[in-house]
């Protein structure tokens, strides 16, 4: 669904906490952010997903207050914070490089924000250690940042950004500085902490796995605009465009013409397949229109025997097979010349007689495995 349609549908959402309306940022003659509309609910973890240069970081910086919006509005908990300087916003950010003050101890780093508020010493001490306990870094309070590992620095940075109990927490590529090994574990841990504390969070990342693991909802951005917004499952299963389909996970893209158009199903004639496609949901495009269809590799079933039915299967030859550990990736050259990818779980391969390279093969899929793309 497009973002404006979404916004319209949820206009009266009582849980809405952050609302970004028509936000634009222009640098010289470069339009970094083109009229973005966004609504984030209270206590929701929301991810902005996109590759570098898509405008997500600029958007985040505008939310933090480090960039002045060229036009548009940012509402937080009913208050317009568009023109409020960063040191007066109830917003805190965890930086990609963590930005821990090197000349201060861990304790001083976390206490810094509270000191600026004028909180009294006893309360600062309590809250600082409360935050450090949350991230399990209380024992390191006297160390300096350069004495900590990357993961430890991240926790301190998180504690520092949570100790002020901000209305909105911003995370800038939170996992980018960590090794791949510990990334997944940290993602889950971080999400748990955020849910435990109960804070609204907007994070920015280029790693779709990160977004899908941590976020309740995400928005895919490219070239300064949000192209799709929804829960990770929705966006993955029902991408609205070739861009989103290809950006999140990998997919097989087919092009064809609608030959049967019913409210609850459509059939598509496709030159790349010898049999028509049958999709089990209705589409808004009319009969005869050319559309694109996306089928995820894990939805393609591979077998040596010809499937039954008129629709949703094709014949071809295995051109390449890559063993990925938990699954195998088959590249199949169909009779039409089109190459598709199918991913087959290792379990299935072990149980049956797995086809090898240059062998003839059939690929088939369910009626609800294919999605018609809007663009």
């Amino acid at each position: 669904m497009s973002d404006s349609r979404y916004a319209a549908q949820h206009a009266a959402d009582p849980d809405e906490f952050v609302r970004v309306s028509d936000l634009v940022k222009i640098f010289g003659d470069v339009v970094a952010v083109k009229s973005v509309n966004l609504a984030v609910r209270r206590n929701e973890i929301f991810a902005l997903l996109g590759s570098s240069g898509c405008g997500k970081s600029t958007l985040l910086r505008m939310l933090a207050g480090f960039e002045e919006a060229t036009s548009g509005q940012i509402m937080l908990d009913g208050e317009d914070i568009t023109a409020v300087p960063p040191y007066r916003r109830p917003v805190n950010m965890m930086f990609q490089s963590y930005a821990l003050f090197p000349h201060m101890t861990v304790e001083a780093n976390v206490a810094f924000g509270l000191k600026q508020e004028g909180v009294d010493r006893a309360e600062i001490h309590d809250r600082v250690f409360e935050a450090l306990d949350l991230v399990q870094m209380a024992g390191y309070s006297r160390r300096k940042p350069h004495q900590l590992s990357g993961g430890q620095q991240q926790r301190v940075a998180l504690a520092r950004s949570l100790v002020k109990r901000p209305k909105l927490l911003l995370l800038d590529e939170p996992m980018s500085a960590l090794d791949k090994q510990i990334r997944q574990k940290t993602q889950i841990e971080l999400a748990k902490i955020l849910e435990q504390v109960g804070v609204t969070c907007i994070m920015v990342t280029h790693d779709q796995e990160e977004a899908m693991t941590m976020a309740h909802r995400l928005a895919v951005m490219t070239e300064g605009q949000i192209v799709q917004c929804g829960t990770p499952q929705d966006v993955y299963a029902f991408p609205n465009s070739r861009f989103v389909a290809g950006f999140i996970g990998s997919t097989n893209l087919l092009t064809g013409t609608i030959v049967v158009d019913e409210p609850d199903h459509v059939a598509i004639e496709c030159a790349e397949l010898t049999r028509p496609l049958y999709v089990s949901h209705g589409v808004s495009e009319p009969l005869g229109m050319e559309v694109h269809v996306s089928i995820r590799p894990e939805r393609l079933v591979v077998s040596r025997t010809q499937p039954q039915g008129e629709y949703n299967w094709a014949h071809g030859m295995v051109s390449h097979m890559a063993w990925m550990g938990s699954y195998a990736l088959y590249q199949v050259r169909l009779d039409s010349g089109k190459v598709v990818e199918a991913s087959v779980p290792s379990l299935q391969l072990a149980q049956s007689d797995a086809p090898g390279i240059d062998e003839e093969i059939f690929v088939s899929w369910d009626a609800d495995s294919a999605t018609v793309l809007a663009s």
Partner: protein
Amino acid sequence: MKGPNNTGRSLALGLGYFFLYAPIISLMVFSFNDSPLVTSWSGFSLRWYGSLLNDDALLSAAWLSFKIAALTATAAVVIGTWAGYVLGRMGRFRGFALYVGMLSAPLVIPEVVLGISLLLMFVEMRGTLGWPAENGTFTIWVGHVTLCMAFVAVVIQARIRDLDRSLEEAALDLGATPLTVFFRITLPLIAPALVSAWLLSFTLSLDDVVLASFLSGPGSTTLPMEVFSRVRLGLKPEVNALATLFILAVGTCVVLVNRLQWRKESESK
């Protein structure tokens, strides 16, 4: 990968450093020469060091120079850091090129130009405003600060450029006003550069002959002026002694500061 040529390297560096240090060493060696003919060695002696201690003119000139140098360094660091910060942190603004131009002028313009211009201005001010009443410590100080602030600005600007901007942003994000950020985050982090800049200004001020000559008045003779007027007339062994003391003092300080910085840098790695 091929490294640089070793004989070429030894030759270039060896000759270069010999060229740089031969005069300094010769100065120091001949300060211990018993003969008043500086370059004819007649025996080891510390007499010239003794005569230094009795040389009132030289000592009072030295005291004045140290005072002016300390005042200059402090003022130059304040103004120069301000300028360096503006150049390093603020984006393009109208007149940026003019700003950079005016700031780099004292670095390269011959000191006689600066000296003449400032002196003429002070004379003019005396004529119209009646102030400053006479040239002396104040006028020399102004000249030195104008010269040194440009050097400070260069040093500080380079350091600030290398400073991670996200540290200042994080402080803002946590609720610190820009002023607080400057004093609690930026300044502590560039402190070593501030010290270097102070020492640099101190040295430049202490060593200046031209500006001091133009801008001094009755009773305000600086050390370089005193030394210069003496050596114009020939070689003077007390000057050798003075030079040796000076070189040893400066050399020790520079090496110490360098060791400290090197250790600090290795620590944070």
